[in-house]
């Protein structure tokens, strides 16, 4: 395996890590309006949800920034064409991520129902939009885009809204929602845990159907022989997720949704290789690992850096999960220390 191939794998790992870790962050954000609804203690319930990801969501998001930086460093041509082609989806994702960051951090700063409602809207938008659009974007990468000989995108926003890509978006939406519900069941106690477990059952069933169709479509239209492996593993994991949520085996269910996400990412990247972005105009215009990679020297430097630093990063990030491993219940949420609203 040459260095360009190695870096293709690294990019896949970084996006895989991002989807596994931010997947449940998005899921928790998506479920906030539902699990908190209709109760007297609604706001406290929402705070329980938020605090399950409280200490870790920021570092989870860094997987995306590092994936973007690594793409720029290792495959500049891929970074340039992809991000200028996906202009509007990416802009929407960025808007979503921006409002989510500030909504999470600022929500408890003012003790006022209307303030918190607006922050919940921000967390909701910032979870639903990226959860949908990441699937749309990655399905389009596998499917290919109209790209000319100079590696310029010649389509429009509507080129991106094809049935396969929309199914991809629905898949990530449901996978992340399920992943989030399962994570919540694992991280909470009491009524929240019961609610989350109920949502996890229904969501995992919907996920199994939609993700199954998407995986099969991917495999039949773009797959290779060996990608049947990850497809089958992902499908089995999805079945396992349904079974585990029905039996309320929370640890197993979380492992199953994690494996389903990893299997899907391997399927997508595996189907893509050796292209990084196929051209639907003419296969000769495909962006490939070869024609977009940086020089051997750059990749060598980056490889040394990655090999030394990544284990350290994974170690301390893992440690932070260990520190905050305890389950959270409604009783543990302290009263809001936000300042009162200025409105009388």
């Amino acid at each position, binding site marked *: 395996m040459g260095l360009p191939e190695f870096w293709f794998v690294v990019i896949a790992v970084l996006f895989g890590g991002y989807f596994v870790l931010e997947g449940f962050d998005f899921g928790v954000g998506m479920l906030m309006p539902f699990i908190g609804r209709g109760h007297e203690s609604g706001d406290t319930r929402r*705070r329980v949800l938020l605090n399950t990801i*409280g*200490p*870790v*969501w*920021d*570092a989870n*998001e*860094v997987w995306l*920034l*590092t994936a*973007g*930086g690594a*793409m*720029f*460093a290792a*495959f*500049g041509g891929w*970074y*340039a064409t992809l*991000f*200028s082609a996906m*202009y*509007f989806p*990416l*802009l929407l994702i*960025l*808007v979503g*991520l921006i409002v989510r*960051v500030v909504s*999470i*951090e*600022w*929500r*408890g*700063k003012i003790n006022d129902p209307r303030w918190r409602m607006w922050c919940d809207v921000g967390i909701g938008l910032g979870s639903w939009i990226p959860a949908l659009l990441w699937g749309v974007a990655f399905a389009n990468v596998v499917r290919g885009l109209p790209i000319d000989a100079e590696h310029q995108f010649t389509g429009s926003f509507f080129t991106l809204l094809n049935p396969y890509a929309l199914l991809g978006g629905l898949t990530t939406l449901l996978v992340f929602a399920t992943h989030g519900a399962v994570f919540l069941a694992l991280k909470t*106690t009491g009524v929240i845990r019961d609610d989350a477990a109920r949502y996890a059952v229904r969501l995992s069933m919907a996920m199994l159907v939609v993700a199954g169709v998407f995986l099969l479509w991917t495999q039949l239209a773009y797959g290779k022989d060996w990608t049947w492996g990850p497809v089958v593993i992902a499908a089995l994991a999805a079945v396992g997720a349904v079974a585990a949520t029905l039996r309320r085996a929370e640890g197993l269910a979380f492992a199953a949704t994690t494996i389903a996400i990893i299997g899907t990412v391997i399927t997508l990247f595996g189907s893509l290789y050796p292209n990084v972005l196929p051209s639907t105009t003419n296969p000769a215009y495909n962006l490939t690992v070869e024609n977009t990679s*940086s*020089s051997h020297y*750059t990749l060598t*430097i*980056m490889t040394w*850096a*990655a090999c030394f*630093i*990544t284990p350290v*990063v994974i170690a*301390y990030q893992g440690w*932070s999960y260990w*520190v905050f491993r*305890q*389950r959270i*219940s409604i*009783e*543990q*949420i*302290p009263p809001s220390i936000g*300042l*009162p609203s*200025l409105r009388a």
Partner: protein
Amino acid sequence: MDVVDVSRWQFGITTVYHFILVPLTIGLAPMIAVMQTVWYVTGNEQWLRATKFFGKLFLINFALGVATGIVQEFQFGMNWSEYSRFVADVFGAPLALEGLVAFFLESTFIGLWIFGWDRLPKRLHLAAIWLVAIGVNASAYFIVAANSWMQHPVGVHWDPVRGRPAMDDFWAVITNNTTLAAFPHVIAGALLTASTFVAGIGCWWMARNMWRAKRLEDAADAAIDAEPVPDAVSPSHVDATPEQLRDDAHTLWRPVARFGLWLTVVAGVALFITGDFQAQIMFKQQPMKMAAAESLCESETGAGFSVLSIGRQNNCDNIDHVITAPGMLSFLADHRFDTRLQGVKELQAQYAKEFNKPEQNFAPNLFVTYWSFRAMITWAVGSALLAFAGLWFTRRKQVISSRRFGLFALWMLPAPFLANSSGWIFTEMGRQPWVVAPNWVDNLDPLRISMFVHNGVSRHTAGTVWVSLITLTLLYGILGLIWFGLQRRYVIEGPSARSDVASSSGDDADTDAPEQLSFAY
């Protein structure tokens, strides 16, 4: 406006916005780490209150800093894809390393610091904030290295097969002399920002406490049963007695303010030295930028420093120098009063000939570069005024009780922010029309390893970029107002009462006992 102009505005707005928040984060993280260390070492509870008070302000700022930073990572590919293709071999590496080394560090340990007050042993919790401080500064190093490469490309050769520069010396890229000069300047600017912030707020609270103590006593003396404190906006301090207020002014606010004031002096000296060093490099490596900054149109021996000039237009034809300090500009350039400096016109002729582009304007916007350079220096004076006055008024255990000085301290808070913005606007607009400036000094194939801004832009329609420009400007505008409102409320609220801060830590019971979390969103 065509797509180049819209894209430039878009990048300028989002970057300037990001850099309003960034210096406060970079400077405040180590300051909070120092405050917490003092508490850890001495056990003095006042420093714990200061840590928690400035910690809240830090986190309000950190959130928006992160939010606006996300956009930067993707904007190169979205709006400047031709540039991204051209520089990918060198420019991506520092970005990726920034994510790997710095972003992971700061984001993981900020989570541990926020939520770890009673989960982590005190020593580890202190280590967490220090690691955040290291992370934010490391991130600045990598991104300044990336930017410096655009100002002064090194460590590359021309790759004729790919038609773009290829990196051959990573060490040269990250030890670029432009980086080594710019990074300390940026860090000193960030420290100036944070120290002015801490000092200004400290001075204001000190004055406020003393003034309120006096009001309370006057009211008690006159035995008036009216509302004692008319400006009581912060509920946690309404019940404070005059003695407590005075005690806080002496034992909390005076040390905090003097910490900020001394750091302002240190940062100011560092800014002066690093700025001088940077200017000398710039005169050699980017003579056009410095000529434009001084509106030095004609080449001169023993050039004077223009203190004030009047020019109606952005060109050399109608600039009138009103006040000039003779020989000073040459002195700035290489510490000799009689050095010959090239003017804009001579450089223009020289570049037009070298690049064989007689139509191309090689000069940046003279008006913006001239005034942003002066604005940067002038705004920094605001911090200096506060530092000297504050240190004088708090000498020999004195405290500030003048309400007017308290307000003056608050009014100085925006000055370093404006200085930072002016400095970056000067640096970046002075690089125009280049996105990768040619490197003449090291003779690094400047004709090919260089790129005009108009060649770096993505091939979008102007309308496409308008959508993102308007979306991000509106969003940032709204969030900026909320940021300001929150900072204002939390500054006025002040630190929590003394009885609130003492918290036991290190007792990590792993039962599900419903003991409340020390912090929850």
